């Protein structure tokens, strides 16, 4: 199974990697338990920075699509197919929309919400 990235695409490279690995899992081109190339191998083959691949693998591991087994390597998670259906971006947007709506109903202005959001993100609360 090949993976193909476009370095001039507006979508960041790590996101392209995440998307393609998830889509390969969904289409069963790679199956649970299959081994993935090491970070160094994939980065060298695609001629990209290994930190980019590491970031993609980190996000896939967080979403339980892949599983790192130390020196033995990285493998597709047993429940990967179910986990690829979960869209974290959609979930964040929905949760934020609900919170913003609640704050507006409570009388908070948009600038107050933005300021509070920035403070929370910067750990200044």
């Amino acid at each position, binding site marked *: *199974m*090949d*993976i*193909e*990235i*476009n*370095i*001039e*695409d507006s979508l960041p490279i790590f996101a392209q990697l995440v998307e393609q*690995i998830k889509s*390969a899992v969904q289409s069963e081109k*790679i199956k649970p338990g299959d*081994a*993935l*190339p*090491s970070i*160094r*191998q*994939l980065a*060298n*083959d*695609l*001629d*990209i920075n290994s930190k980019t691949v590491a970031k993609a693998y980190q996000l896939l591991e967080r979403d339980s699509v892949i599983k790192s087994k130390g020196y033995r*390597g990285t493998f597709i998670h047993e429940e990967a197919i179910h986990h690829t259906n979960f869209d974290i971006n959609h979930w964040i947007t929905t949760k934020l929309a609900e919170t913003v709506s609640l704050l507006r109903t409570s009388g908070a202005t948009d600038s107050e919400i933005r300021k509070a959001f920035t403070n929370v993100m910067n750990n200044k609360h």
Partner: protein
Amino acid sequence: MSIIVIILLALISQVWLISYFYPKQVVKRINYVLTHCPEHEFPKLYPVPSKRINTIKNIYLAVNWLFAFFGLGLIFYFAYVVTDFKQHLNILDDLPLLFGMVQFLPLFILEILGHKHLKLMRNQYSQSNRKAVLQPRRVFNFVSPYHVGLVVFTYFIFILFELYLSDFTFNSDASIKIATVTLVNVLFTIIAMANLYGKKRDPYQSEHERNKQTAFVFTSFVFISIFMTIYLMMHSWVNIYELNYVEILINSLYFQVMALFSIGALLGRLKVEQINFNVYKASH
């Protein structure tokens, strides 16, 4: 057949194989690429003009032929001109070794030029789409574990053998030989790992071609390592019994077998006719 005749035949064979036969095959390979993949159709293959490649090829062939004549001249000198053959045995036993190193020089230079050629290809590579296979490459996909085991076994037998000959003390001769074999094995491991996990030397090379090349590198290194270790053991053995005639013979055979495992294996296993050159086309 006397030992002198056997030695003469071995030396003639060394000159013929390394300075005539294999260079001719290498040039044939270059000619195949130049004829079947012209510059206007396969521009990605030529970061330098094909004329320059032709010139390098001709110089390579000329230098090899020069070495072949020189080698034959040396054989003639020691076979017919030198009257007291035995007086020159100390020079003669190392001669195939020194001449063998000189014989390999054009090939080393060609290898360095090839490396530079690939570097220029990488610099010119401008495709924004990049592909990779989503499967790990592992050492034992390319080389049998038995072969690797054999390399390790030969290495330890060699150390034991050298220590046995030096009464289990590290004298200078044993230390140099053990250090040489260790360093060569470390170097082979580094190169093999770079082939396995490192960046592609040729940016247009397909995964299939790369895997073929990696398997070739591993197999060659395994056989060269084993043979080099056996050769050094034999070298120590003939030195102890002062078998100078045998030393000339094994020194000559060493370079011939090395050529067989490196250039010979390359020409035989990575046949130029089977390489997919379409990836170097302008339209690809």
